[in-house]
């Protein structure tokens, strides 16, 4: 065992925890299994009070296999593959997020460079930032008159703040020595921004971007539950209405996996822009 590296030990332990966890879960289910099937039957026949049972992991695994082997099927508005649903969610997240980044990063630069801009905009930021993104939803639906665009707007508004604040903070914190290097080399303002300030502030900016994408992915599920139609959030809600708990658990896991992938992309970006002084 001594020969095993720390990472391998950790990986083995993770697998062990997973297996034991699933076994315990599986073992505690059998009594309910019948109930689950009955409930589905009752539901189909429209009779009885539905009492859903929690499905065992084997069933979730089966569901995952079934869904992931054909993720992009489209059989009408209420029956689309998990790939299509996740695709819609990612599309909304990335659109809202890209709009937010396009505004937050240049604006953050401005705020970080000029203390007047900072002082002028700070009160607005302080009031707008703590608002729950979903609180904007009714207003967005009323003004925009489009559920799709409203969901994107909610993503926009929730992901703008961490990027804005971190960019401003990172830019304001760039060491004067480095700016002086740019000055002694007579770099133009634009060149200084791109070759000195941006790389110097990049780790802080990317941290803000990483926080934002995490929040955006949290919010999209809730937003889609509200606006309906498509997306992973809607899918969860729809399967709950169908009392298909297996699908609910499966989609919860998928939300986690996609969130992790988005986060690790930014983790990778963070590592490429990192530097040690």
């Amino acid at each position, binding site marked *: 065992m001594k020969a095993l590296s720390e990472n391998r030990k950790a990986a083995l332990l993770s697998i062990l925890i997973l297996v034991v966890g699933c076994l315990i879960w599986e073992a505690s289910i059998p009594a309910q299994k019948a109930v689950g099937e009955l409930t589905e039957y009752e539901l189909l026949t429209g009779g009885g009070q539905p009492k859903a049972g929690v499905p065992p992991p084997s069933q979730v695994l089966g569901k995952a296999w079934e869904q992931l082997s054909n993720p992009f099927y489209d059989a009408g508005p209420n029956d689309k593959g998990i790939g299509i649903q996740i695709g819609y969610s990612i599309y909304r997240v990335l659109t809202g997020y890209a709009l937010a980044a396009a505004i937050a990063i240049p604006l953050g630069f401005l705020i970080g460079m000029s203390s007047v801009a900072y002082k002028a905009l700070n009160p607005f930021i302080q009031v707008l930032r703590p608002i729950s993104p979903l609180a904007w939803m009714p207003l967005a639906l009323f003004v925009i008159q489009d559920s799709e665009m409203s969901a994107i707007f909610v993503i926009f508004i929730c992901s703008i703040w961490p990027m804005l604040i971190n960019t401003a903070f990172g830019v304001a914190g760039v060491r004067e020595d480095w700016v002086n290097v740019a000055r*002694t*080399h007579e770099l133009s303002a634009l060149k200084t921004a791109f070759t000195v300030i941006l790389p110097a502030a990049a780790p802080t900016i990317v941290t803000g971007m990483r926080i934002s994408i995490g929040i955006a992915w949290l919010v999209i599920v809730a937003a889609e539950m509200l606006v309906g139609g498509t997306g992973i959030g809607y899918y969860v809600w729809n399967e709950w209405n169908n009392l298909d708990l297996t699908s609910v658990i499966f989609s919860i896991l998928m939300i986690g996996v996609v969130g992790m992938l988005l986060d690790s992309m930014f983790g990778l970006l963070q590592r490429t822009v990192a530097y040690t002084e």
Partner: protein
Amino acid sequence: MAKSFLSIEQLTQRYPDGQGGEFTVFENASFGIEKGEFVCILGHSGCGKSTIMNILAGLAEPTSGVVKMDGQHVSGPSLDRGVVFQNYSLLPWLTALKNVTFGVSARFPNWSKEKVIEHSTAFLAKVGLTGDAIHRKPSQLSGGMRQRVSIARAFANEPKLLLLDEPFGALDALTRGTIQDELIKVWSDTDQTVFMITHDIDEAILLADRILLMTNGPMAQVAESVEITIPRPRVRNDIVEHPNYYAIRNHLVHFLAQRSAELSGQAQTPDQQPTPVRIDLTDDAETEDPEPAKPVLRAVEG
């Protein structure tokens, strides 16, 4: 009086003292530097050497007074004035080589990428950095190596005026010697002017044409301008044999140990230049009294 290549006129720097008042780092400092001259400035820590250098670089505005280079007002930094900062100021996300090419491509925007790299590599080699070290980031280099990258960046730009703030402070004696020789070579091959801050008296005597002496702050002044009357080329081990060496050295040590404190705090008259001091024992020339009874008010090299 003839205008010097670089003329510093009535420079005053005050800072808030943190208690609502002000303190004066130096007042009415005036001196000149000729083209091609190598000038060192000596003074105790905190007397305002780096402050003067930042003003010469155009990075800081003095409270009052002007700096002129080639008759032009210095207002803001320029590629004609290369700086080696006291804390190196390398960009930590760039490799050693890229830190130098950063400067070179700003200085010579028309050069091809290959030429920029070739030029930068050559200057890194001059300060003893070759091989894979030049592809490492500053955080992966030793303090002395970082300092050398910073020196290479300034040298590679071949500025008219080189401003060096304790450029060899973090180097061991051997490397220091090599780079001092390299600096002298670069300087004598060109018509560059060098203004260098140092704490090392022997280094100053070895390198400088003239040493400016600053009294202690606050209210520091550039009190004396000591000519180094030892002919070039100077060889590190041989100059100590020169009859003037210890006379000059003793004068400098005496100033720093005693007179820098005694003279401190005296306000300068607006046009006062540092007192020129020439110590030469070789041709029975008269040695100027290190402590003149009354200050000789005349321009440097007058």
